[in-house]
């Protein structure tokens, strides 16, 4: 009933999707501070979601389910940058402020600043006893 080529392709997409999703989740646990964890979550939100929903779309064939999966994919792709931006901006208004943000208008010296792990660890510790 399902074309074997499509079945193999969808299996491949699902497997790749699982791999990227697991890498994202491991990154979520392994990365040292909030902002880097956000990048790891970004991996699970973009390519992994695309691959898994794409694999399901290949299984669905021409039906209403295909359109609905397309809508889900489109919706996740439109909302995930909004959600992560809102999250980053909210963190920016807290103790997790990026060092660069303090030097508002003077960026002539050296624009790239390595973020200081101790500072963030300190902020994390601050948060830990507050939460």
């Amino acid at each position, binding site marked *: 009933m399902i074309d074997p080529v499509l079945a193999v392709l969808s299996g491949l997409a*699902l497997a790749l999707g699982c791999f990227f999703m697991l890498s994202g989740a491991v990154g979520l646990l392994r990365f040292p501070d909030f902002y880097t964890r956000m990048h790891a979550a970004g991996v*699970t939100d973009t390519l992994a979601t695309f691959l898994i929903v794409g694999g399901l779309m290949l299984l*669905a064939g021409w039906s209403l*389910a295909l359109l609905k999966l397309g*809508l*889900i994919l489109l919706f996740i792709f439109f909302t995930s940058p909004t959600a*992560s931006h809102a*999250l980053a901006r909210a963190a920016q208004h*807290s103790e997790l402020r990026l060092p660069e943000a303090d030097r508002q208008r003077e960026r002539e010296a050296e624009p790239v600043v390595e973020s200081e792990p101790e500072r963030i660890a300190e902020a994390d510790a601050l*948060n830990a006893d507050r939460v």
Partner: protein
Amino acid sequence: MLTATMIALLVVMALALVRALLGPSVYDRVLAANVFGTKTVLLIAVICFTLGRPEYLDIALVYALINFVSVIGVLRYFEFRSAQGGEALND
């Protein structure tokens, strides 16, 4: 493959829960909750294919909407907290 995907999704959700429990900041927890939510959407979609019932996709769609709105709502609540305590600065 669908079963394997389902197991992988459950593992990812468990890892997100571990991050949510470890924290350490509120924002890490919200991030983990967001990841958990989007994975739930995918899990519902995969389940509806294993059961062969395409109607369940509607639930996935609605869950995606609710997840987004709830994350934004929670962030509105936490955004303007000062460093010292739970006092809202403005807005």
